[in-house]
């Protein structure tokens, strides 16, 4: 029987949009990109920030989107605007899939396979 000593410590999670805030440098590091890469995409409107000028505050959705943009640009040498358009479409598909899942759950219909 494990002793109290063997019990793994419980790691407290921080909610990114509440307790934890990310700086522009944090976001760049998460994306494996330079801070200038983030700044350029903010200026071009391809990424959004909640904070007023000079104080960046990045929501969870922005972090996920930024990682997606970085991956698309790097993997396919994609133009940033084209990568953003692809990310828009991926996000829209995810929204529609979620809606479909809710409707299926509410109506008890099995998901269509195809």
């Amino acid at each position, binding site marked *: 029987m494990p002793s109290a000593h063997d019990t*793994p410590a419980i790691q407290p999670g921080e909610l*990114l949009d509440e307790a*934890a805030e990310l700086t522009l440098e944090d976001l760049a*590091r998460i994306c494996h990109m330079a801070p200038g890469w983030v700044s350029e995409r903010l200026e071009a409107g391809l990424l959004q920030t909640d904070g007023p000028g000079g104080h960046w505050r990045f929501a969870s959705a922005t972090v996920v989107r930024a990682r997606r943009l970085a991956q698309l640009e790097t993997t396919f040498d994609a133009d940033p605007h084209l990568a953003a358009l692809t990310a828009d479409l991926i996000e829209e598909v995810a929204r529609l899939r979620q809606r479909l899942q809710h409707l299926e759950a509410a109506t008890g219909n099995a998901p269509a396979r195809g």
Partner: protein
Amino acid sequence: MEFKDYYQVLGVGKTATAEDIKKAYRKLARKYHPDVSKEADAMARMAEINEANAVLSDPEKREAYDALGRQAPHRPGQDFRPPPNWDAGFKFSDGAGAAGGPDGEFSDFFEQLFGRQARAQRPHGAHRQAPHDAAWDGAAPPSRGNDHHAKIELDLLDAYQGAERSLALRGARLDAAGRMVHEERSLQVKIPKGVREGQLIRLTGQGSPGTGGAPAGDLFLEVHFKPDARWRAIDRDVYQPVAVAPWEAELGAVIAVQTPAGALEVTVPARWKSGRKLRLKGRGIPAATPGDLYLELTVALPPAHSDAERAAYAALGAAFPRFNPRAIPGA
């Protein structure tokens, strides 16, 4: 440690040109992109493809890998140990395409062959973070550990109450020689209440270990709620279908409803309207500004099994001789 045939992973021959490798990589990256792929093992395949590309698209790493193959030929999956000084004469520099996966995770095989330098050199390119100036002297400069990313499925009730979850992670630690060693580990995580769909939970210091005294990376968990026929969340607002009897719908009633916020008594107003929603302010996902709970009312008809029940329906029909449920509004 299993030998990995990177040429087989990308589906190219050993004489493939840089252009062939780029084409094969992009084709597979599209097929197994985690956002679009329907393959069950898409994430694992993508990691494998990224790793193969990191080696084969870098001329120096590819040359070293080819030389290793000539020195010690192996079949894919076969147990493998690199021969002593296999890398003598090679100095891997930061080359295009050596970025690896989005989370910077590589196999034991890659770590054994290129580990110290690869970590020091990642990432690369015009927009990539500036690489450290790592000469192959066996000692990487201090470098913060990579962040890791994973998805976690929770019940909506976890957002109301908070939760603890045990996660099985494939982590890494540095051995006595400073090499990254992969290991399975479990992590007990406290999920704070108030979490929303798509939100990230940060676990500080639970990513890859840093080198040279630099801090470990963080682990980010992306939250998704399991589909549940009882309720669904959109941001902090929660929607719950609730059925009412015809007489409750038309005459009004106080009904008991089991919600994610607990058992509640709710007043259904008289005079039914199709698509009626009752808003319970502040009963959505908890937060400084909590969401609202919307009860989506539907009318459930009781089945008529007995003669008395069928007579009750007949009497209802007789009481409403002018009611036409198929009448077009406004016609």
